[in-house]
């Protein structure tokens, strides 16, 4: 079973609109990371939010974390066509103190002009 899961599976918006991707996870975490993967590239980190943080911002991006409900959200404001990508949440399982990220299946975001 998935330890981290994004929803919805896919989203389509027009440029300028705002969008939110949700993530639910099943383990105790030390941090949750959001990654974006554009076609033909590897994932790239957008935001890392630690378990003692409730919100983190990075430009047009805002991530929230609710450890009581084991959920996180990533919001993008004023979307652009270049935001088109697959968005993953990844939880940090600290086995032996080293990153062992567990990724969800991802949310496909399409931003059209």
């Amino acid at each position: 079973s998935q330890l981290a899961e994004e929803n919805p599976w896919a989203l389509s918006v027009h440029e300028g609109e705002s969008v939110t991707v949700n993530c639910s996870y099943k383990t105790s975490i030390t941090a949750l990371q959001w990654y974006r993967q554009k076609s033909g590239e590897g994932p790239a980190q957008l935001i890392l939010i630690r378990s003692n943080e409730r919100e983190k911002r990075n430009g047009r991006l805002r991530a929230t974390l609710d450890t009581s409900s084991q959920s996180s959200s990533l919001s993008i404001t004023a979307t652009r066509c270049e935001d088109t990508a697959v968005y993953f949440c990844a939880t940090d399982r600290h086995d032996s103190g080293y990153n062992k990220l567990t990724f969800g299946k991802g949310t496909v975001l399409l931003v059209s002009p």
Partner: protein
Amino acid sequence: GGIITQTPKFLIGQEGQKLTLKCQQNFNHDTMYWYRQDSGKGLRLIYYSITENDLQKGDLSEGYDASREKKSSFSLTVTSAQKNEMAVFLCASSRQGTEVFFGKGTRLTVV
């Protein structure tokens, strides 16, 4: 900044073949990883290494071997390629507790 270089970018193999994928990083990171990405299944950890000559099995290690002979390089071997297998293999590196950086991937097709 740094970069992770994966070779080859595309790999076509035959059923039963042993295939090797290579990865180099110049971040000077201690930890390196191999993930497999299948369509609709997210990324799954195959092997990781916390230092030179160290190897740790991930969730999907069966059917694979790995080698970390230098800090900067981490190779993955598919011990016996499965017919009709198609996946992207992603190499990554990190310092402990920080951002994980990924390469662009090796796309494997087995005919």
